[in-house]
């Protein structure tokens, strides 16, 4: 039983956490692809940027001496989402829209987004330095321990993890309602389905594009902020995020928001299950197993340092066997 709780903590909760992060990133990526038809390489760095904005806001408020009952970062990430959304629209106006209007091919815009990625990386390093930063500078992280019957071991969840799980649930429901009920949300799906007919129907593409960046930038900020609250803020956060969120978006079917969410959790759980040490679960059976079968100390499928291999392998398998992804998206 203790071992099972260990499994819940190390594999299930961790999978849920990292899966939420990937899902929030992948949704933005897939919407941007669906509407604007290019792979937004700078999305990982939009997540880093969002986390940085959260840190700056929280830091600025703490300088005023305000006493807050909860860690400032946990509040600051909400306005930071709005700021990141505005920055995302600004980046689009400055770098991507002129190319679109000139009728540039998607690969050109992808290259522009590589440039934006490098720029954002440089910007965050200039402003925040290259070191790691603690998002909980004002007060320690609460840790929730949930007692389980029949075992002294407890489920462990930190404050930002709890917020992340709640936020992801709310964001998914809100996004669903927006896309199926709101006039602008339906127009987003229409543009993703058939941009020419959307234009013929008089849909204002600029509104739809702005909404896409608001959702993509806002969710990227939330994911980046909550991830760095859970661990620490590093300027190279995006390095470990970009591949998994692309894998999640492609697994889910490019352009399919629900697919991206499913893909995010699929990639997240695959990662944590692949690095989980399965021998822990076998240890209780050591007495009943035949003597010649000794349980090795480490039975993880992939060593932790190679965790990035998991989304990579998933990506290759999907691209070879089902390039449209689970939810039948577009082929890249």
């Amino acid at each position, binding site marked *: 039983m203790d071992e099972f709780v260990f499994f819940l903590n190390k594999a299930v909760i961790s999978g849920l956490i990292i899966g939420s992060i990937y899902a929030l990133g992948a949704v933005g990526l897939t919407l941007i692809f669906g509407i604007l038809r290019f792979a937004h390489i700078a999305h990982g760095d939009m997540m880093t940027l969002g986390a940085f904005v959260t840190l700056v806001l929280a830091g600025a408020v703490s300088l005023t001496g305000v006493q807050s009952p909860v860690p400032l970062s946990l509040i600051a990430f909400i306005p930071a989402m709005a700021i990141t959304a505005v920055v995302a629209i600004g980046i689009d106006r400055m770098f991507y829209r002129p190319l679109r209007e000139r009728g540039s091919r998607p690969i050109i815009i992808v290259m522009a987004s590589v440039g934006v990625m490098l720029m954002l990386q440089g910007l965050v390093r200039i402003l925040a330095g290259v070191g790691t930063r603690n998002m909980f500078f004002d007060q320690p992280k609460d840790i929730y321990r949930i007692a389980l019957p029949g075992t002294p071991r407890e489920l462990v969840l930190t404050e930002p993890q709890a917020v992340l799980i709640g936020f992801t649930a709310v964001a998914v429901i809100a996004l669903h309602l927006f896309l199926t009920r709101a006039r602008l949300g*339906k127009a987003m799906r229409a543009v993703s389905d058939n941009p020419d007919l959307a234009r013929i129907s008089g849909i204002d593409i600029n509104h739809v594009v702005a909404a896409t960046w608001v959702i993509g930038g806002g969710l990227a900020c939330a994911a980046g902020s909550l991830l760095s609250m859970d661990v620490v803020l590093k300027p190279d956060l995006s390095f470990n995020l970009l591949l998994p969120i692309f894998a999640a978006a492609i697994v889910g079917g490019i352009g399919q928001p629900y697919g991206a969410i499913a893909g995010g959790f699929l990639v997240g759980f695959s990662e944590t299950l692949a690095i989980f040490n399965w021998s822990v679960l076998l240890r209780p059976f050591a007495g009943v197993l035949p003597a010649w079968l000794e349980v090795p100390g480490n039975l993880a499928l992939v060593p932790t340092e190679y965790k990035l291999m998991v989304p990579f392998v998933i990506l290759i398998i999907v691209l070879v066997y089902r390039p449209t992804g689970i939810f039948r998206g577009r082929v890249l």
Partner: protein
Amino acid sequence: MSFLSIDGLSAGYGQMSILSDVVLQLDEGEIGVIVGANGAGKSTLLKAMFGLVNITAGSIRLAGDDITGMAPERLAARGVAFVPQEYNIFPTLTVNENLEMGAYSRRDDFSAVIEGIYRIFPPLADKRRQMAGELSGGQRQMVAVGRALMIEPRLLLLDEPTAGLSPMFMSEIFDRVLAINATGVTIVMVEQNAKQALAIAHRGFVLANGMNAFTDTGANLLANPEVARSFLGA
């Protein structure tokens, strides 16, 4: 002065010129039918009327106002709607959502208009929550035309509404076109099925190589042996 009046229109894609010096006049409440061989420029003419191709010369006037090269949302405000030849629905949106998108430029309550469209196309009424891409070809065409009708247009541009349909569905669509026209909507329709289409046309326009070849009433064109020989496959 005609309700719709196209004068000396030349248009094309980028540098490539497709239409030259096209003339087309239609009175309010009429059905105009454009026929011609594949590649004659029929679709290009409709797209030019909807501001979707490069116009190099000439003018398009609607009820006396110049609408040459006007953007779709402004045309919608003037009551012009267009059903393209291909890719004319939103496949992953429901039937009802397709109709709502047709009304995107309207800010008033259009629920009565939607119900009116389900009366014109009864097969759609039970499928309103179904994805449009899952419907049969005939029903998809109904969605496409229904979407365009959502602005309650004065002028409806239809590009081959019967393409790929079996003869039974074809006459059903022609019946609907007549019914829509009976409500006062002026219609410009491109058709491959020239004989049936000219039979319901007030005015017919035969295009060849991007130019006017014959222009007359529908009945006269059908009776014209030269038109019959070269364009009606008879």
